């Protein structure tokens, strides 16, 4: 079901929309304070200086809040990246690609190309996910093969488990 929606959103209309969004973001930039739905992106030993962040915005929807039929929120990600080295400096690579991966790393979805500066990728409809940017030889490849240069986790992955904590008894120290 979610796959269907992802495919639908990836249609030509979706690309047209992303280019409009890209234009606007290109003009304004995803600036402003880092909000709760931003994803700090960290470099790796392959690209230690690389940095950036992703900002979750709702994918286009007539309802404003984009959901799949089973209730997963559907986001586009506005990525701002800096200090990405030339992909060719890491090997036989020509481009950077963003991926969303489930936290067990079993499911990877290609989100789109990433450059230094601003990029819009998506959509992603996972409750919790890792955002990973890799160097690739082909921006359309369906599987990730190259080295990772940036990574981060979705804000929802910060949800804490309180079940086992003996707190909240209402007694002040």
């Amino acid at each position: 079901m979610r796959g269907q929606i992802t495919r639908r959103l990836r249609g030509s209309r979706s690309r047209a929309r992303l280019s409009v969004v890209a234009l606007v973001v290109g003009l304004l930039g995803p600036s402003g304070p880092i909000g709760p739905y931003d994803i700090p992106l960290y470099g790796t030993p392959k690209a230690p200086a690389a940095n950036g962040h992703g900002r979750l915005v709702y994918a286009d929807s007539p309802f404003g809040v984009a959901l799949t039929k089973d209730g997963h929120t559907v986001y586009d990600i506005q990525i701002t990246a800096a200090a990405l080295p030339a992909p060719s400096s890491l090997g036989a690579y020509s481009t950077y690609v963003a991926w969303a991966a489930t936290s067990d790393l079993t499911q990877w979805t290609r989100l789109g190309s990433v450059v230094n500066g601003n990029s819009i990728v998506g959509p992603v409809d996972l409750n919790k996910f890792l955002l990973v940017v890799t160097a690739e030889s082909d921006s359309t490849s369906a599987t990730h093969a190259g080295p990772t240069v940036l990574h981060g986790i979705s804000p929802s992955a910060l949800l804490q488990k309180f079940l086992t904590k003996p707190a909240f008894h209402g007694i002040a120290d």
Partner: protein
Amino acid sequence: MRLALVAAVLGTPFQIALGQQPPSAPPAMPPGMSGMPGMGPDSSKTPPAASPAPTTAMPGMAGMSGGAMAMPIPMPKGMPMVPGLIGLTPPVASFLPGAGVDPMKLPVVKPTEVARLKNGDTLDLTAMLLRRTIKGRTFVMYGYNGQTPGPLIRVPQNATIIVRFHNRIDLPSSVHWHGVRLDNRYDGAPGVTQAEVRPGDSFEYRVHFPDAGVYWYHPHVREDIEQAMGLFGNMIVDSPDPDYYSPANREQALVFDDLLVNADTLIPFGKEGPDFALMGRVGSVELVNGESRDTLRAKTGEVVRFYLTNVASSRTFNISFGDAPMKVLASDVSRFEREQRVSSVVMAPAERYIVEVRFEHPGRYALVNAVQAINHFAGEFDPEVDTVGIVTVDSAPATPDFGSDFAALRANAAVSRDIDRYRPYFTKPADKHFTLTVDVSALPLATVQFMDVDTAYYAPVEWVDAMPDMNWLSTSKQVHWAIRDDATGKENMDVDWHAAQGSIVKVQIFNDPKSFHPMQHPMHLHGQRMLVVARDGVPNRDLVWKDTVIIPVGSTVDLLIDASNPGAWMMHCHIAEHLGSGMMTILHVDPAAGPPAK
């Protein structure tokens, strides 16, 4: 299913409540209920913070027994109650409709009837006590003209009707005509446009319908009680253009709601002000047209046009009809510029959507609300699917076959042309910046302890009540929701907001994620229409005129208001308990000739 309603909408005979005599005398208003709205604090009886539970059952809580009162809130499966909250009750006196009234003397709720009215017609609309059975349990609730939902008012566009409202319930009330751009004095907002209608009193409304679409009426007094107990109804306004919407074999209004019950009891309301003030009251039973499992029949290939309304106090729905294809045609105050294929409908409180669904194959289609809830204790998402109706599709083919019309997605050039004159203003600087936030005081310590550490991630939208114990124990005495004017720091009714009639007002509203308990807010503006031109800086590419817009936590929306209708108009959150905790302000649209002389 409301077969009567279906038949009526299809054009078969229907009953009109014209000239209906209201019941003779209202039930007595309980003590402490005077001075609405807000129902004058009865502080002599209520401590300032959550109080230890009494050793006897709470009034209205038949079925609760034992020593210390058990938690009357059904907790989600596998969710422990926070230990520090056990035994507490909210610091308000409890209220349920019909105290002291013999339920067996009340009428049983009737199915919705269609009141098909023409220009100049009069309707008597009586808010009254009635008996309703939900999932085998009978409750004393409210309804209009003995019905829940109330009469479906169907009128031609540009008609003006007279509605004689009679209040025969045990609370003051009024009728607000949600989304209708009518004369300000008939807007039904006590304290702003009229005095509340006391029990036993009446008020005459003249309701003018300038826009085609689906609307709803409800009280604008203690919505957390009156609306939740059954006071709501639809209005469908028909365009003179027979080809206004893509053709359908049939029309059906579906009103989505929920009700909070525990075993055989309703959960009492706060008498002096709302309980469940943090998240709003989220029901444990989801309802469609007042029923917990609505059923509908269709023919193979039938295209059904659904008029969807969310009248719940707090719940946002995500509705789908099995795997039946669906397209969305219209929302609050207009059609979309372009129809879109959708897999589900996301609908916040008070929003409406008009969709068409084609039932292509014989069989059963489940009408479901499907969301990804959050279990805050496990730190995990928790899928929830609630089946609120079943559509049984017979093998007989629908005639005529509208399959090809359904497959096409229309562009509504008239809508785009109407919006064209507003487009130059889409990117102008905002005239007003608001921040949505909350202040709390005197909440139970365990609630504060939990909330303070559960701050790593806020759901942009709370789809369920994941913390019903903390929520129940929060009341409008402790929780103060605010619409804050960024320029002045003033909040809610202290904000000074004027616009000249005919001006185009851009408002930017930011839902602050850093407050004590951030939550989505469905913001409603009375009496005008508005466009959501951008969300989080991303332009909206398929516009529709709205009166209610959901603003998730952390989001910023840019609204363009067509300030064409003079008067004092409320803008407020449509989560009834947020409204009841202060979250409202007023847009004064000053008549074109200038403000009236003092």
